[in-house]
Each structure stands twice: as C-alpha cells, then as structure tokens.
C-alpha cells in the first residue's frame, strides 16, 4: 500500500502538480501528504503514513478509596483515545486490594477464544484437591482468566507446562491483574469490560509494533516477578545485550520484545534488594534508546523518560487522581482536567506516586 502511495506521489510530482499540502494529522507525529493534482480527476488525496514509533501509554491512580470503583470508567476513554497512537494491540494491568498473604492472583491467557475454562478448572481441582486446595477461584472472559489461589505460582506453572501448555501466565501477584490482546484498544477494552473495573491504579498501553511481532504475548504491559509491570513507548537499541546479560544470570524470557528486556532488567535489580528508584538510576546507564517507561507495583506508580525525552508524556494531578498519558487529549474528559496541575516529566527524572 505504501509503495502504491509513493509511486502516486512521484507521479504527481512529475505530472502537473498544482499544490502539495503538508498536513499534520490527528495521530500525532505521523503525517499525511495531501496532493491536489491536475493529473487525477477529481483531485486525488494520497496519504503517506510513515512507520513511526508511536504507541500510547496511559496510567491512572485514584487517591480517595470511595472513588476507586470509577477507575475503569475513567480509564477507558484514555485508553481508547490513545488507540490512535497504537492501533494494533493493547493491554492494561489493574491493581486491586491485595489478597490475603497466602493467596495469589494469576492472570492467564490462551489463544483460543472458545477455550473450555470449566474443564480447565475441573482439571486443576482434581490435581490439587489432594494438597487440600479448596479455595481456588477462576474468573474467565473469553481467552483470559484470573485464578485466585493458595497453590504456589511455581506449582501452578509446573502443572500448566505439563497439562495445559497452551496457557500463558501474564501476571502473578496479590494485587495485579493483566489483560492484553491484539486488535484495536477500544475492542479490547470492551471485550474485557475495562469500564467495570474497580481498582486503585492501572497502567495501560496501546501498541504500534515496530520491532517484534504483533501477538498478545508481545503486547504490553510486561510483568516480571510479582506485582510489577511496565509499559514502554519508544524503542531500545540494546535489548539483546541486556537479555544476554540477564540470561547468564538465569533469567528466562518469553518473547523477543525489547520492552520485556527492560522489564526483566528492572525486576532483576529489585530482586537484588534495590528499590525501583535505584534500579532506574542503573537503567539510565544501561538502557540505550528512546523510552518513556510507566511502571506499577502494588503500592506505587512510577514514570521516567530517557535523556533526550523524545517520547511524550503528560501528567495531570488533582486531589482525586494522578493521570498519565502520551497526550493531553486523552486526559481532557477527566473531572476537572482543565483545573489539574499539568506537567511534562523532565528527562532522566524519576516520578513516583504512592497509592
């Protein structure tokens, strides 16, 4: 398609070109060339959409507890509007009240939309009933499910590998739940009923893939360890170097995506006992490339941009919420957004908000 457009463009240039009008489109840094040319009857409009690294990020943290049931309703327009920056896939991590210390929430993904979750649940129960598990609960929506269980994540993972290899674990933790899939973000939000979600904070991403495949697994958010996730707008130039370094440390990767490398890198540092801000100071030295990174743990939302700050981010904060997006237009609908304190994060500065 792009080649056809280009040859039309060249044809227009060599033909009787009357006007070329460079127009900035509503999708940010991409642009369209509008050609009005005598050669074509009637005037032809040729759109050239160069492959720019776009992607959109959104984050929302609701401060007063009673308002948290509105999180989903408020985040969906943010997420849908950033679909213009990243139309090929999307995802969101929601953080809920933590489960009791003995339980974990495990988010699961399978490619088959008609997957038989009841028999999955029956299989799980029959396997683990001998170990005394009676409390496991499964909530499924099409190809996603969240399992709340006292069985250890390692045991679940071992059982999945043996019995249900088609299933992927998207997240593990006491608070986190992750949904991600391919397709336009607005379809994804509707499919998994994002607007009904009640949570303290969330981190979402709308993807325009530039460096690895478009699959649910390659979509953001990425998770590592427990109750940690990351979304990324930009591109890293040294993900394989990071990856080799981490693989030597025994870490396992699930995709060839650059963001997964950043996510596992940060979680690996935190595992060594560093807190996220120290890990990020090291990341500024070790990550090469362009990035706006938005991260969440069970009790914090954190945001950084690389030294050149080429990838956008806007923060709007009121007494009720902290809202983060790639562009202000996806925050404009929020209550009192025009009265909010609005700012852009500085390069290589760490911004962090406690829940």
């Amino acid at each position, binding site marked *: 398609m792009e080649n056809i457009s280009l040859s039309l463009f060249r044809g227009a240039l060599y033909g009787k070109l009357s006007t070329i009008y460079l127009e*900035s489109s509503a*999708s*940010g840094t991409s642009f369209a060339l509008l050609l009005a040319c005598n050669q074509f009857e009637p005037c032809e409009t040729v759109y050239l959409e160069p492959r720019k690294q776009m992607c959109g990020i959104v984050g929302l943290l609701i401060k007063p507890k009673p308002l948290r049931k509105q999180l989903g309703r408020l985040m969906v327009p943010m997420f849908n509007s950033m679909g213009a920056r990243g139309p090929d896939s999307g995802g969101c991590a929601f953080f809920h009240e933590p489960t009791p210390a003995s339980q974990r929430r495990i988010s699961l993904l399978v490619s088959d939309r008609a997957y038989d979750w009841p028999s999955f649940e029956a299989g799980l129960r029959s396997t683990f009933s001998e170990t005394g598990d009676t409390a496991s609960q499964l909530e499924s929506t099409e190809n996603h499910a969240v399992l709340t269980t006292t069985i250890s994540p390692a045991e679940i993972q071992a059982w999945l590998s043996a019995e249900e290899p088609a299933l992927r674990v998207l997240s593990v933790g006491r608070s986190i739940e992750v949904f991600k899939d391919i397709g336009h973000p607005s379809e994804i939000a509707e499919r998994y009923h994002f607007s009904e979600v009640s949570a303290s904070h969330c981190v979402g991403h709308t993807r325009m893939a530039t460096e690895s495949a478009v699959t649910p697994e390659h979509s953001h958010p990425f998770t590592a360890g427990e109750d940690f996730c990351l979304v990324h707008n930009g591109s890293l130039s040294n993900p394989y170097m990071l990856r080799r370094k981490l693989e030597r440390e025994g870490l396992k990767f699930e995709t060839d995506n650059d963001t997964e490398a950043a996510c596992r890198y940060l979680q690996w540092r935190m595992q060594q006992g560093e807190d996220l801000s120290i890990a990020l100071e090291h990341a500024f030295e070790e990550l090469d490339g362009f990035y706006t990174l938005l991260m969440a743990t069970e009790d914090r939302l954190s945001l950084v941009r690389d030294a050149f*700050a080429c990838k956008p981010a806007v923060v709007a904060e009121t007494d009720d919420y902290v809202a983060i997006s790639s562009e*202000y*237009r996806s925050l404009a609908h929020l209550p009192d957004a025009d009265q909010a304190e*609005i700012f852009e994060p500085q390069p290589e500065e760490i911004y962090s908000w406690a829940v």
Partner: protein
Amino acid sequence: MGSVMQTVKLDLQDQTVREVNQFLHDLGPSEGIEQVEILHPQGNHSIAVGMDADVEILIRGHAGYFAAGMNKQARVTITGNVGWSVAENIMSGSVRVKGNASQSAAASGHGGLVVIEGNASNRCGISMKGVDIVVGGSVGHLSGFMAQAGRMVVCGDADPGLGDSLYEAVFYVGGEIRGLGADAREEPMTDADFASVRSLLEHADLKHPLEKFKRVASARTLYHWNTDAQQEY
C-alpha cells in the same frame, strides 16, 4: 460605510478540527470577520494550522500538537497549554500561549512572534530561522538547537544544552543558564541587545528586569571543518 467588527464562535464539540480549519482557510478579506473564537479544543491536534488571513483567533482551553502551525498573518491566542510544536514553521503574525508549551515550540519558525507566557519544554526554538520567541517562564533542554536566525528571550531559566550547534540566532536569558550546548557562548550585553530585549518584552506584553539578561550566541567554531578536532566537540 465603516466595517462592523464581527466575531464568529466555533465549537469543537460540534465540529471536527478539519471543518474548523477549512472555515479558517476560507476566510477572505471580504467577509469582514475579525475574530474567530474556538471553544472546547480538548487537547485536539492541528487546530488553526495553515492560517493565511489577517484575523484574530482565540482558542479557549488546552490545545494538542501543532496548534497554529505554519501561521501567516493571523494573531492566534491559546488560553491554556499546548502540546508539541506550537507555531511550527510560523512565517508571520503572532501566536500567544497563555499557559505552558510542550516540546519544539516555534520549531523552524521563519518570522512573526511567538509568546509563551508560561514555560516551554525541550527544544524550544529548534532550528529557528528568523522568528522572535519570548518565553515568560523557563525553557527545557536543547532549546535553540541549530537555531539559524531570530531572537529568543527567556525570562526564566534555560536547561542544559542551550543553543547547541547554533548559527546566527541570539538568545537572551533572564534566569539561570544550566548549561550551554556545543559552540554556544555567553557574550556581553550591548546597548543594542538591551534595546532588543526591551522591545521584544514590550511586544510580548511581559515584564522582567532588563539588567538580568545574558546574551548567548554562536562562537562560530563549528562553521568550518577542523580536522584536528577529531570530531570531538
């Protein structure tokens, strides 16, 4: 017969940006429209781009990317904040932002005046080619990168990398300069410089003590290739 001052209100809740811009592009001198108010910009991109008419445009609220880009003649005011590249490639006329501006304000502007009453973010005035810029607050890093001509007055501070690889543009900074880019240097203020700053502040309707301003211009050491430098600049 004297012309009647006519104001038209357009609401982006009822019309698309494309429709509003088409209306603005169709404005001719015969209509007698002197002011257009644009309501509910809601952070939309590309509002009032490509103007070429002697009218006043008032955008009430926060605008998105490319607001008033490629402006000729028009006097555009945005009452809120703006996203990336406000007044990009401005040729003439004026663009005023009452709030803050995101990156690349007045990028590659050839002429006219751009006033940011609040702060301007990174790369303000990048590759400016003759535009005058007045910023009431501070500017972000790498502002005035490769600036070729024109003047930029910053009442507040300038983040690191100010004027990296600049040509003949001149900057006046009223606050702290947190770092100069390659080949940018501070120079003494002459009477002509003080007169420039006074006149630009007057045009911008902003006030700042004149004696605070420092002049930054090109040391012109990058104008010619120097083999001895080993590309270490």
